[in-house]
C-alpha cells in the first residue's frame, strides 16, 4: 500500500540542535507503516527545490499521526523547518522495505548515529520486548534527541558524544563494543539494528560479522522517485565478483549488513 496525500502539519517543533519533530495527519500512512519504511515529502511549492525528499517514519501516534524526525542540512530541510502547524504538506508513502522484527526470544540492540535514531525509535516503539536497548551517538550534548520526544515508550538507552559533553566520550560503536564484551548473551539471541552515517554503519557491520550477529541497517541514497521508477538510488551489493546493484527505495532502505558492499565510494 502506498498513498499520495496532501496532509496537514500538526506540529513541527525543534527538539535538538537543528533537529525537528514533524507531525503530520495521515490515517492511511499511520495504519500501514512499518518501522524502517519512509515517506517522500514535497517541500517546495514551486519548481525549486524540484524533487521530493525522503524521510524515515520515526513513529506513529493516535492512529493518524505520522512522526518524522529530521535534521536541517540543506535547502529542502531549511524550508521544511519554516513550515507551521496548519499548513499542508504533500506526502508519498509508506515506501520501501522495513525492518524484519526480532522474535520474542531475541534481544534487540539498536545502534544509532545522530539523526539515524529516526527509524530506530519507530522500531523500538513497535518491538514489545522490554529488553530493547538503544545506543545513540551524537556530536555534542546539544544535538542529543531525547527518547521521550516520541512519547513514553520503555527503552534502555545509552549515549555517546564525540566531544564527551554527555555520556561516553567517543563513538557509539565503542558503546556497542563494550556492550558486546560485557554481556554474556549468546550471539544467536542478539539482533542488531542500525542507522546512521556510512562509516558508522560500516563499523557496525564489521562487528556484526565478527560476532556472528544478524544485523539490519537502514541506508541512504539520493532518490528521485522513491518507488522504483527512476533507478537512481542504487547501492552496490555483494563483493567484487558478484557485484550487483540494489535499489535503496524498493529493495531497502533496510538491508542485512552483509548484503552491502561497504567499500564503495
Amino acid at each position: 500500500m502506498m498513498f499520495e496525500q496532501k496532509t496537514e502539519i500538526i506540529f513541527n517543533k525543534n527538539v535538538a540542535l537543528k533537529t525537528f519533530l514533524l507531525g503530520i495527519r495521515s490515517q492511511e500512512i499511520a495504519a500501514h507503516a512499518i518501522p524502517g519504511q519512509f515517506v517522500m515529502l514535497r517541500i517546495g511549492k514551486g519548481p525549486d527545490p524540484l524533487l521530493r525528499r525522503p524521510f524515515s517514519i520515526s513513529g506513529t501516534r493516535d492512529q493518524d499521526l505520522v512522526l518524522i524526525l529530521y535534521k536541517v542540512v540543506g535547502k529542502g530541510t531549511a524550508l521544511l523547518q519554516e513550515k507551521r502547524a496548519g499548513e499542508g504538506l504533500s506526502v508519498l508513502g509508506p515506501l520501501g522495505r522495513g525492518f524484519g522484527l526480532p522474535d520474542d526470544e531475541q534481544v534487540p540492540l539498536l545502534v544509532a548515529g545522530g539523526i539515524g535514531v529516526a527509524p530506530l525509535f519507530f522500531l523500538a516503539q513497535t518491538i514489545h520486548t522490554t529488553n530493547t536497548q538503544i545506543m545513540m551517538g551524537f556530536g555534542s550534548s546539544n544535538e542529543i534527541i531525547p527518547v521521550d520526544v516520541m512519547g513514553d515508550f520503555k527503552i534502555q538507552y545509552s549515549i555517546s558524544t564525540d566531544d564527551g559533553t554527555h555520556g561516553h566520550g567517543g563513538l557509539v560503536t565503542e558503546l556497542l563494543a563494550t556492550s558486546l564484551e560485557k554481556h554474556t548473551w549468546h550471539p544467536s539471541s542478539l539482533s542488531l539494528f542500525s542507522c546512521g552515517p556510512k562509516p558508522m554503519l560500516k563499523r557496525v557491520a564489521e562487528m556484526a560479522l565478527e560476532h556472528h550477529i544478524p544485523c539490519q541497517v537502514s541506508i541512504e541514497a539520493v532518490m528521485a522517485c522513491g518507488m522504483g521508477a527512476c533507478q537512481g538510488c542504487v547501492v552496490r551489493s555483494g563483493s567484487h565478483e558478484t557485484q550487483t546493484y540494489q535499489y535503496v527505495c524498493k529493495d531497502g532502505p533496510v538491508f542485512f549488513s552483509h548484503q552491502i558492499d561497504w567499500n564503495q565510494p
Partner: protein
Amino acid sequence: MNHISDLRVKIGPLGLKNPVIAASGTFGYGLEFEPLLDLNLLGAFIVKGISLSPRQGNPPPRIVETPCGMLNAIGLANIGLEVFLRDKLPRLKNLDTHVIVNIYGHSVDEYGELANALKGVDGISAVEVNISCPNVAEGGMAFGTDPQVSAKVTEKVVQNTDKPVIVKLSPNVTDIRLIARAVEDAGAHAVSLINTLTGMAVDIDKRIPKLANISGGLSGPAIRPVALYMVHQVVRTVKIPVIGMGGIMDCRDALEFLIAGARAVQVGTANFVNPTATVDIISGLREYCDEQGIEDINEIIGSLLLECR
C-alpha cells in the same frame, strides 16, 4: 460540467484516447504507479529503455538535483529484452492503454535485432527509438547527433518491425531540424523530443563531479524553454506527428507544447514530483477544453499565432 470535449489524437497509425503519455525512464514499467493511478486513463505510457542484454547501469550517485531540474546518469540500466517480455509484458497486456517500448542499441544492428524481437508481439502498440545513447563505433558521440546515422537506425527499425516507429531526438545538436527530417525520410511514423540535455555538477567540497559518471542528462522545468523551441522548430519542418516533452509539470505546460504544434506530450520528471502528474494533466486538459468551449483538442494543436507577434 459535462465533459463532452474530445481529447483523442492520432500519432500516425496510433490512436490515443488523449495526448498524455508517460515518458520512458520516469515511469518504470508502469506497474510501479498502479497503486496511485489508473493506468487505463493514460493516452499511453512508455517503458524504461530496453536493450538486448540486461544492464546494471552506472555506479552511484546517479542523480543530482539542479536549479529547477535534475541530472540523471542512470546509464540505461534495464532488465533486458528477454526478462521484459517474460516478466513484465504479461502484466501489461490487458491494460486498456497503449504500451510503447523504448529501445536502444549499441550498433545499428542491435536496434534492428530489438525491433525484430518485438515484431508481432502482442500488447506493444509502438516502438520508441532512443537515439541519444553513445555510439561506440563513432567515438561515443550519440547516434542521434548525426542525421545520416539517425536515418540508418530509423530505417533498420522500420524494416524490422510491424509497429509504428517513434524516433526520440536528442537536443544536444546544432540543428534538430536536420535530424528530424532525416528520420522522417527514413520512414519514422513520428518523432518525440526532447531527450535530456547533457550537463554536469561539481561537489566543491570534495572537488569531484557530483555524478559518478561525471556528466548526466538534465531534465525538468529548467529545460522547458529549450524543449518548446525545438518542438516549435520541428513541427514546422516535418509532416509526421511530433510528440513534445521537456519539463512539463502541469496542464498549462502541456498546453504550451500542444499550442506550439505537438500532437501529444510526454511527462517525465514530473512523475517523480507528483506521481499523478499524468492523470492530473489529462483532467486539466479536459477542464480547459470545457471552459474554452473546445470540442476537439485538435483545435488547439498548432494553434499558435505567429503573425500578430
